[in-house]
């Protein structure tokens, strides 16, 4: 069953030099206990897209479409109602826990504040719950660490605090926006294990925003690939990695070096050109200018997401059909 269902989401941001269409008709859904990765390069709209779900997007942004959660469209809800949904039902964690934590307050107290907002508990109960939460996210010496200030903790410990804060009220959806990007690989590995473990224990749905195909391969069940504000390919993890149908998805995968690549004398392939900034929705494929396969059909009409031979859904007039292995 889908917990969160996003339909035709568009986000238009006014800037000094005209407006930018950051998200352009994006649809996806995530089910209970499912980890959905939204992957793409900077500027593709992946972060703005999830922030706008609960009114956390850029100021004055125009958000249209539907965000269906528990039988209601969140985009039509008032700020007060959204505040209750945030934290209680849908929680966020971000890339940089240092900027999300209050530097002048012990971390345990900050988690207690969240509990005080959303749950009716006594102070002692809240304290006990904080220790429980810290243990759940693998913070050693939990009671002691609860009294520490953010600067006294490592980046990995701070991210664990953020996760404990996010799950404090038992949300059904956790939105994790590049949660491991600022962390070292060994710490990243530990945080990804924690997220998987929480999914298994609590049955949370997780929407993970990342640019890292390795992270996607590690943790996700399904993946949405975004380009210039649109979903250009979507599917199960096996299908997207094994038989990516969109030339951009293939480009992303072949741009990352893989073990043994140098020994095989295979060169990395970048994607020529740069990501366009879109002012208004164009009736064409936005990748056409960087694509070797583009023709008239691609430039006249937006390609819809449609089933591809490899089992993914792809927005491309000329999808690839071969397996990506052995290229």
């Amino acid at each position, binding site marked *: 069953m889908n917990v969160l269902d996003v339909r035709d989401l568009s986000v238009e941001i006014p800037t000094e030099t005209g407006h930018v269409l950051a998200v352009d008709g994006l649809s996806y859904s995530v089910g209970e206990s499912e980890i959905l990765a939204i992957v793409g*390069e*900077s500027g593709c709209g992946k972060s703005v897209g999830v922030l706008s779900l609960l009114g956390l997007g850029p100021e004055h942004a125009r958000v249209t479409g539907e965000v269906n959660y528990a039988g209601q469209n969140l985009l039509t809800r008032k700020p007060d109602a959204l505040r209750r949904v945030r934290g209680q039902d849908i929680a966020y964690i971000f890339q940089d826990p240092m900027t999300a934590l209050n530097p002048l307050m012990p971390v345990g107290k900050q988690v207690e504040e969240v509990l005080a907002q959303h749950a009716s508990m006594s102070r002692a109960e809240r304290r006990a719950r904080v220790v429980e939460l810290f243990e759940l996210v693998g913070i*050693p010496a939990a009671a002691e660490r609860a009294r520490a200030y953010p600067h006294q903790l*490592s*980046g*990995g*410990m701070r991210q664990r605090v953020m996760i404990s804060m996010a799950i404090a009220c038992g949300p059904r959806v956790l939105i994790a926006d590049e949660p491991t990007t600022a962390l*070292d*690989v*060994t*710490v*990243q*590995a*530990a945080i*990804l*294990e924690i997220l998987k473990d929480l999914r298994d224990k609590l049955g949370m749905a997780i929407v993970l925003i990342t*640019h*890292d*195909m*390795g*992270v*996607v*391969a*590690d943790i996700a069940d399904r993946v949405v690939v975004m380009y210039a504000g649109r979903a250009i390919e979507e599917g199960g*993890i*096996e299908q997207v*990695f094994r038989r990516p149908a969109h030339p951009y998805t293939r*480009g*992303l*995968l*072949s*741009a*990352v*070096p*893989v*073990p043994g*690549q*140098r*020994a095989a004398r295979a*060169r*990395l*392939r*970048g*994607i020529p050109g*740069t*990501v366009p900034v879109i002012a208004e929705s164009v009736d064409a494929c936005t990748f056409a200018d960087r694509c070797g396969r583009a023709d008239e059909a691609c430039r006249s009409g937006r390609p819809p997401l449609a089933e591809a031979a490899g089992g993914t859904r792809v927005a491309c007039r000329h999808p690839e059909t071969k397996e990506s292995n052995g290229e």
Partner: protein
Amino acid sequence: MSEPNTAVAGGTGNGSADVPALHLKNLVKHYATRRGTVRSVDGVDLTIRKGEILGLVGESGSGKSTLGKLAVALAEPTSGSVVIDGTDVSRLSGRELRRRRKSFNIVFQDPGSSLNPRMTVGEAVAEPLRIHRIVERRGEARKVAEILDTVGLRPEIADRYVHMLSGGQRQRVSLARALAPEPTLLVADEPTSALDVSVQASVLNLIADLQHDLGFACLFISHDLAAVEYLADRVAVMYLGRVVEVADAESLFTRPLHPYSEILLKAAPLPDPDAQRTRERIVLGGDLPSPLNPPAGCRFHPRCPIAVDRCRTEEPELREIVRPGGATSSFACHLVDDQGVRPPLIADMPSG
């Protein structure tokens, strides 16, 4: 490998082929802070041969960036020496050092902050040519166009300001600037980390091509193990201010000897779901200890799954062995024997 000690006094440089491009000898860099001494680089011996790319990997706080700055004399070592092409550059006077700067250079992670925003690309690339008096003014524009061409930029771009360029183009400009005086040593400190993956690929290819065509030696510092494996001939692994392993890239990535090297390699996620989900996991316990007060004995022992008593008291030195196939590996671990065998890490670890 010859000891360049004798060449230090002479300092003429560019001697025979077996003088390394860079030789760091017992290099130490301590920073005094209010809370004590940060032992950022704490006794490193490392050699880069001419025309070789040495990858330097390690996590934040390992001292790899400090090492990069020391290697191009942007920081003064507390002790030890930095010998570039036979000359100890850490002992040179200001004027002599400026003269020698022609032969070594560094590029950083964020070209947006290391390039002057008030200069055009042409001016930025011409600046090192002027400082080192490489061409006369008349020939400057042509030389700039030529250098831009080697880094894959069109000559028209010379009139643009840096802020008008994309991240990938900016990194090409900083490479153009760094390579304009034709250095024999280039330090690249996380040169692709701020770039999108599709752009990273083209910058990695560019560094490989430039190195192949121009033949400079390169210290490639990165936390991105895949990039290092792609580019480097040899790889050094740093942990808490010390080098714990040095080996040719293939040996290091297929059979790392130091436990930390193995854990680091296994932590980097592979962009392949089958391989990633079936591989062994070793989750590293605890936090990186403070470089203010590194652990006694082997610095990795508090987090090492196979540490024994000796590791807690006796700091292991770098030892060199010859691997099957003839390549040499150096490592600082008591538990690796002279055949390159050590106990497995997994045995008594709960797998993740």
